[in-house]
Every structure is written in C-alpha cells, then in structure tokens.
C-alpha cells in the first residue's frame, strides 16, 4: 500500500509540475502570443510548395521519358510548359 501511495503521489506531483512548467519557466513573459506565419510567410510557403511541385513534375517527366512511358512528341509538348512553370515559381520565390 505504501509503494502505491508513493507512486500515486509522485505521479500527481510530476503531472502538476509538468503541466505548470511553461508558466514556472516564464512567469512574466514579454510576449505570450502563439506566433503564426504572417501573410507574406504564407505566400512564400505556397510559392515554395508550388516550386517543389513544378521541379518534381519536370524530373518525373524526364524519368518517364527515359523509361519510355512518355513519347517524344508528348515530351516535347510538355517539357516547355513545365520548364516555364518551374522558372516562374523560382522567380516568384526570389
């Protein structure tokens, strides 16, 4: 019974300390706001995702062409569009 009491007490105290830790560590912070990305950061994130998507699509097209899944005609038609889009996203990302 005594072991159970000790374990129970440790659990309760440990839980309270852990939950209170952020407040104990910073009792009076200068800024308690939960920062989230501003509009500019969100735009940059969207552009970065679009850039990666465009570059991946270009790589995928090259690979599909090399493995014979994309014919030469289709490749010529698609590669220009994808390169242009990749260039645009790279420019937009600065």
């Amino acid at each position: 019974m005594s072991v159970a009491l000790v374990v129970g007490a440790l659990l309760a105290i440990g839980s309270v300390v852990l939950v209170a830790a952020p407040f104990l560590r910073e009792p009076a912070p200068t800024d308690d706001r939960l920062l989230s990305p501003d509009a500019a950061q969100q735009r940059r994130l969207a552009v970065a995702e679009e850039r990666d998507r465009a570059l991946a699509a270009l790589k995928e097209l090259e690979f599909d062409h090399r493995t014979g899944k994309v014919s030469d005609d289709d490749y010529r038609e698609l590669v220009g569009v994808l390169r242009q889009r990749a260039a645009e996203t790279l420019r937009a990302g600065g």
Partner: protein
Amino acid sequence: MPDLGRAALVTAFLLLVYALVAGSFAAWRGRRRLAASAQNALIAAFGATVVATVVLLVALARHDFSFTYVAEHTSRELPLGYTLTAFWGGQEGSLLLWLLVLCGYSVAAVLTARRVGREVLAWVVPTLGLVGTFFALLLVFVASPFTTQVAPADGAGLNPSLQNPYMAVHPPLLYLGYVGLTVPFAFAIGALLARRTDERWIVQTRRWTLAAWAFLGVGQLLGAHWAYVEIGWGGYFAWDPVENAALMPWLAATAFLHSVMIQEKRGMLKVWNVLLVVLAFDLSLFGTFLTRSGIIQSIHSFTQSSIGPWFLGFICLITAGSLGLIFLRLPLLRAKTRLESLVSREATFLYNNLLLVALALTILWGVVYPLLSEAVTGEAATVSKPYYNFFLHSFGLPLLLLMGIGPLVAWRRASLRALGRTFLWPLSAAAAAGAALLVAGAGSSRVGVIAYTFSVFVLASIVLEFARGTSARRALGGVGWLGAFSSLVARNRRRYGGYVVHAAVVLLAIGVAGSSAYQTVREARLHPGDSMTVAGNRLVFRGFEAKTESNHRAIRANVDVYRGDKYLGRYRPGKNQYFAEDQVSNEVSIRHDLLTGGDLFLIADQVNADGSVDLKALQKPLVNLLWLAGLVFVGGSLIALWPDAREERRLAERYEGAAVRV
C-alpha cells in the same frame, strides 16, 4: 494496488480533459504558454496511463483475483505468457491498451512535429486530447479494469482460442494500426481549424499514416494465420464482422496513401484527402466499437456491455464535427489544377480510390445491415459470404488490374503509342499465362483464372518498372547495374517500396484464389485402420492418444499420410478440453508442402465414443503464399518508411526558405 490503478486513470482523464479544454482555448486565443502546458498534459497523461498499465500487468502476474478483470480472464493454471496477454483479452484491458497506444502516439507525434506550424500543432493537441478524453472517460466511469471483489479461489480462465502465441502480437499490432490513424486525423483537423491547408500536415503525418497502415495490414495477416492454425474450420478469413472491421479502415487508409500523392504532385484532391482521413479514423473507431461493444456475436466479441451507446455517440460527434469543419473550410480546399487526361497516372489513382472506397463501403453495409434490420424489424438479417465475394470480385479484380496499369502510365497524360510500348510485355505475359492456365485445366474457376492472369500482368509490370528504372538510372553513367538499382530505390523509396507492397498483394491474390477456388474438401467417419483419399493423398487413421497438461486434456487422432507408396508422416488433429474454462477447442494438424506452397489441412471434427473419428481433410493449393505475402508486405513497408536524407534536406530547405517554423 487497485486504488493506484484507479487514481492513475483519473489523473490521465483529468490531464486529457485539460489538454482538450486548455489546448482549445490556447489555440483559439493564441496563448503560447497555455498551448505548451496543454502539450505537456498529453505527455503527463501518457505517464499516468503507463502507471495504470503496470498496475494491471502486476495484478495479472500475481493472479490477484481481487481484481474482477483478472478473475474473469485468467486462472492459476494459465501459463504466465497467456496470463500477461490477457491484458488485452477482455474489454476493459483492451480499452486501456487503446488509451496507452493513443497517448504514446500522441506524445511521439507532437514532440516530433517539426514540419508543421505552431498554430496547427496548437489545434492538434486538443484534437488528440478529445480522443484520449473519450477513452479515459470509458475507463474511469463505464468499463474500469480496476473494479474489485472478494477474491475467488481461482479465475474463470482465458478463452481457449486466445491461448495461442499469436495472442501476443496480433491484438497489439492491430491496435497500433487502429490507433495510429488518430495521428493523421488529428493533424488534418488541426490544419483545418488553424486554416492552414498547405501540405505541411501531410508531410508531417506521411510516415505515421504509413506505419499505422502497415501495422493494420500485418495485424490482419497475423490474425488470418491465427484463425487458420487455431480456430479449426479450415479457412483464414470468414468475413466475420470484426475481421471486416479491421479491413475497412485499412482500405480507406490505402486509398488515402494513394490519393495523397496526387495532392503532393498536383495540388489536387484536398477535400477528398481530408474526407478519407476522417473516414479511416471513423472506421477505426467503428472497428473498436464492433469488437468491444459485444453488439455482434463473434469470436472477438467477448461480452455484452454498456459501452456501445458511448461509442456510437462519439462516432456521430466525430463524423458530424469533421464534416461540418470540412464544409466550413471548403473555400480553402479548392484545387488550382485539374485532371488533364482520363488516361494518366493520377486518373488511375483516382479509379483505384473509387474502387477502394466502394469496397470499404459495401463491406460496411454488409456489417451494418443486420444490425439495422434487427433494430427495425426485431430480426437480424444475415449477410453472408456470397454478398462479400460478389463485391470482392467486382471491385477487387479491377483493383488488381489497376495495380498493373498504374505504374505503366505517365503522369498528366499518356499517348496511345507510349501505352502500346509499355504495355506490350506485361500484356503478352498475362495473355500467355491465361492461355497456359486454361490448357492446364484451371478453367473450372473463372474468377481464379482472371485473378491469376491479372496477377501475372501486375508482376510483369512491376518487374518492368524496376528493370526500366534501373536501366535509365544506369544510362546516366558512373554506376553498374547493382549501383543503379540501389540508387533507383533509394531516390524514391515510397514508389519502389509501394511496388514491393503491390507484389505482396499479388501473392495474396494468388494465395486466396488458389486456396479458395481450387481447394479440395473430403469428409469421412474413420475407424482405426480405415482410410480416405484427398487430392492424391491417402490418409490412414491409426487410433487416438490422450495426454493431460496443466490446464487441459488433449486427445489426438493419429493419421498417417501417404502419397502413392511414399509415407509422408504422421499428423495429429484433435481436441483440447480446458478445465477452468470448461470449453473444448479444435486442434488442427497441417502438412505444409513448401515446394508447391499448398497445405493438407486435417480437422478431427468429432471424436466418437466408439473409437472412430469424423475426419475432415482439405487440400489448399498455394495457401502459403498468403504468409509469404506478409513478409514481402513488411519488406515493402520498411522500404517506404525508411528515412530519406535527401528528402529531409529538400523539406528543410523548403520551409526554411519560406521562413516558416521547421
């Protein structure tokens, strides 16, 4: 000790309520310290759940029958291993396992959430807290494993079917799968609540989803093998509602793992993907409800209980809340691109998704219909094997075919000329296999021939994918065939790991078709010295032998097996009579033929007083491919899950470049 267990559960419940309430307020009002405090509450809840788990395990190990749960599920003579696995052998213990796994996943997922913004994580914590609160509430107020009684001299024992080594791994693996689906659900809901519908929640949960899906898949296969060797009816999957309950979320998660690639590559299907995540999680809750509520008579449903209405209420809450949130966020989920062609990789993924979801929903209807009919008319309708087989053939065979078509088709669009070139070899191989099967007399089962032909097509397309990819990589120069092959796989682990998983599904399809469409069954009453023949094997019954073990009496029928004049060995099907449980179990005997992949499966259906046995013998061709499929499935999943340093660098660059928290 029971007081400590109860106190630990109450502590976990309070901490999870705190994570839910304080976490929601912190996310809503943007309070940093409160959000961190709510996150810490999840960690503390995990600690409290571990304490409760240890208390129950100690009580089981000590045979402390003052715990009602221990008395109801174990006995003094039960071996220690099975005594400990009785932890998840009953309702209360398995709910505790759910909570333990959930808290463990929550802590790991939240602490490793580097790719998702703080504003999303702030909403993920209360979402995880909500699910945890529900299970902790059940454990504290409705189904506590720590209720006590005056200790009886001995316990009731464990269901004999659960006294099997698989009991140690099958339920925990299934739970790792079921519960793991909470992680993508919580991050999807977190992203929607935070109005951040970019790719970060997907990037963050990719491995968690894959791991949960792999656990669920392996857990089901182990369950099938358990049923095969232990239950003693000669099969491995019976469309039992609880087996279906594990299959449905796996199908929904499979659909998600495919469609999420379209979102990553093309920015499409955002609404569909969150719907699939919600569906998979809902189905995992529904699966737990079916298994634990006792609403359905099954070997898995151990007891009637009062948790059913709670589960139904929670499932309704989750479904309504999630759908409402998705509806509110629809403007943020609109895709900027469209499907360019109906003949493209993304289109085949879409078809695969429709078939997978259709299959999951028809299975769901098969499970729910008897319950609804009983509720309305008072009589439960039966939905049996032909219903499920019809839909398995209608949706499963096209799915199998699509597994071969998808890899051969390019992204965006494919011309007829390119299709002709890539399809030539797989189609030729499939046509040759189909013709050979018909010539060999396999036409007795149309479905079997179609399944085998499609399987050859898929395997050929997978081999071709690896061969062409390796060749293309080698053409870039600098490496030999082996180097090109390993570089190919290492550079796109998800794709090539996925192909290995496809190969596992093909093995599964071949095994299922062989062992069901082409199996031979014979039954006979044999007296000592009598014989019967099945699929060219002569079985001679030599008489019974009996043996008394610590917790049961075993009786075995000695059956000598011959093929022609060649003696293949003695096999011993029989029955076990368990003392404490007062139950009898079938103990089957199986002769594996590793060369052909088939099994000779013997069941002593009836042990008669006159010394005769009612023997049932099944010849199951290719059934061992099912278990081989499990190994290949694990291999493919590990390849797909293995960390990719190049991908990690690319993601770090993406999010650092965008100055978003990494």
